[in-house]
């Protein structure tokens, strides 16, 4: 923690112009006399590192001023177990695998917290333990059958106060993205959304990496003076580990003193009509901005059909209304990790690649030899999609006839 300080004696029109030009956030203002910061400043310290020398300095706060926590009191890498009425969401098992890696590095235990009905708890318990959890904490009450933001937050609050976990990981699902911030705000602690990489320092600080500014920049984020540290991770971002012989124990937590008041009442829940789900597909043909109309997509649909797959798209195609949002790959859409993905005319912004780079085989066709999509691909083809794909379709059809 600290603040930026400007040495006004070194400020001239020229210096001010340089800094204003340098700052990507419009963080400076100059009235001809005094150079000041605007609210746009994000304290990225770019002006300190790259600006005219010694004009802007970063001054560390006195340590006495920073909040103090005893990090040793906060132990255990925890996974929040999301579930619906009948089953645990598989993202929880992916997160348990990641929690094991983090816990091993820092000699901590892997904890899981399940907020559910008594019946669900019995149903889910064994399965959760079989992914290698050391301790499973259960809050069981019939009111917990379905997600209710206030009682769930109350249960999580109780868990954090009593167990003092180092970290809590949530699936970046609609539920997780609604629940985790509620808990984070209650504890005024950091929460990093949609992490693509998680690691842990020796002192237990969680290293969280995620794409920033919706584009081609990665940010590494830490929560140095607060506990618990919290992060959400999209479904299919990490691979689920194989289940093992359970060794952990289950601890039922007292729910009598938990405030179960809910100002939200569920009136009706209905399943959305099942449609093809891109995150479950084995083969995906992904289409980028070069596809301008739904008719353009016919070629991709044919290729996908021949390969036993499904067509997915990037954000611009959804915004243009060419394909429904449920077919969108990327951080603002779905995360996928199929056996095969063929990228057609996709440039490869991080927003997109973060949603597919764990796919087993990645083939990309793009006109631009410098497209960043090639950076995450196993096979790269520089060429015209509209020439190569029809040829490939022809070939696949011939093979099929012969086969």
């Amino acid at each position, binding site marked *: 923690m600290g603040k930026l300080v400007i040495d006004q004696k070194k400020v001239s029109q020229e210096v001010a112009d340089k800094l204003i030009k340098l700052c990507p956030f419009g963080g400076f203002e100059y009235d001809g006399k005094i150079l000041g910061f605007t609210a746009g400043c994000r304290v990225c310290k770019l002006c300190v590192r790259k600006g005219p020398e010694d004009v802007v300095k970063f001054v560390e706060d006195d340590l006495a001023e920073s909040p103090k926590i005893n990090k040793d009191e906060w132990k255990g890498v925890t996974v929040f177990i999301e579930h619906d009425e009948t089953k645990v969401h598989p993202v929880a098992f992916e997160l348990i695998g990641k929690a094991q890696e983090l816990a091993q590095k820092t000699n901590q235990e892997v904890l899981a917290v399940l907020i559910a009905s008594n019946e669900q708890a019995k149903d889910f318990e064994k399965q959760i333990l079989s992914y290698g959890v050391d301790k499973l904490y259960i809050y069981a009450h019939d009111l917990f059958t379905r997600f209710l933001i206030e009682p769930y937050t109350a249960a999580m609050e109780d868990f954090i106060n009593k167990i003092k976990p180092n970290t809590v990981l949530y699936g970046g699902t609609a539920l997780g993205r609604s629940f985790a*911030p509620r808990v984070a*705000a209650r504890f005024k602690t950091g929460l990093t959304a949609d992490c693509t990489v998680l690691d842990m320092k020796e002192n237990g600080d969680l290293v969280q990496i995620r794409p920033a500014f919706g584009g*081609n*920049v990665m940010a590494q984020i*830490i929560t140095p003076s607060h506990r618990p540290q919290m992060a959400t991770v999209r479904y299919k971002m990490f691979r689920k580990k194989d289940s093992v012989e359970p060794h952990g124990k289950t601890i039922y937590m007292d729910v009598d003193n938990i405030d179960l008041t809910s100002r939200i009442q569920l009136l009706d829940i209905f399943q959305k009509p099942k449609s093809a789900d891109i995150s479950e597909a084995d083969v995906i043909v992904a289409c980028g901005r070069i596809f301008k109309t739904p008719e353009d997509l016919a070629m991709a649909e044919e290729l996908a059909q021949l390969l036993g797959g499904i067509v997915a798209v990037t954000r611009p195609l959804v915004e243009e209304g060419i394909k429904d949002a449920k077919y969108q790959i990327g951080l603002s859409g779905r995360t996928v990790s199929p056996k*095969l993905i063929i990228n057609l005319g996709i440039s490869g912004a991080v927003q997109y690649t973060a949603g597919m780079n764990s796919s087993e085989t990645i083939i990309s066709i793009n006109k631009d030899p410098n497209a960043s999509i090639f950076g995450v691909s196993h096979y790269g083809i*520089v060429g015209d999609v509209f020439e*190569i794909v029809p040829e490939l379709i022809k070939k696949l059809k011939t093979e099929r006839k012969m086969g």
Partner: protein
Amino acid sequence: MKIVVCIKQVPGTSQVQIDPVTGVLIRDGRNAKMNPYDLYGLETALRLKEEQGGTITTIAMGPPPALEVLKESLWMGCDKGVLVSDRKFGGADVVATSYTLAQAIKKQGEFDLIICGKQTTDGDTAQVGPEIAENLGIPHVAYVEKILEVKEESIVVRSLLDDVTIVSEVKLPCLFTIEKGFVTPRLPSYKRGRELGNVEIPVITFTDLEDQNEKHFGLKGSPTQVERMFAPEKNTSHTKITGTKEQIVEGIMNALTERKLV
């Protein structure tokens, strides 16, 4: 019904890149626009106002240029815009941002409903809405697609939760984040803009807030820290398939066969 809508000014383009050599952020132009997801929040609020009567206050936090999105909201039909802006708010993460906005909302007096877009296009976290609700001690529903019924003390909404749709009744006051695509946002009206003229937009600064502890705002009030920013690693080790289009197709077929995909 008294509605508060939180809006944000975001960069007009997401083409921010990092120079791999100097590590400097390169941002294409400075043109900024209203966060597109907020338009659905505004439209939802405006329709509620048309049906139920009441007022809409829009609140934006950011540097002075963010006045533009507040003006835009007034031209669309909102009644009052408030800018929350102070150097002390700079460097705020989700916790500090939502706390500051909650403080600013409290300054506006009683309210029935707070509406946010489901997320922003620059941060993409979708966290600020729920954190505002927690700071104000009110319930929230995320990803609301339709307001079904407004009752005396509650409101019935339909919301999305991955593969289920939920209908729930929520006691007022409460906060909703609005899913995109279920209403078509109206455009700002030039006629209304002319009528409003050069309207003054009040600015709330740190000294206007109830909480006068600087440590709760801006960088100081932010538990998360950006340790570094970097360009994503590029793996250049991929196999290049080249040649005529027949050769390329042959190459793709070989790759598919080798990996047992056909």
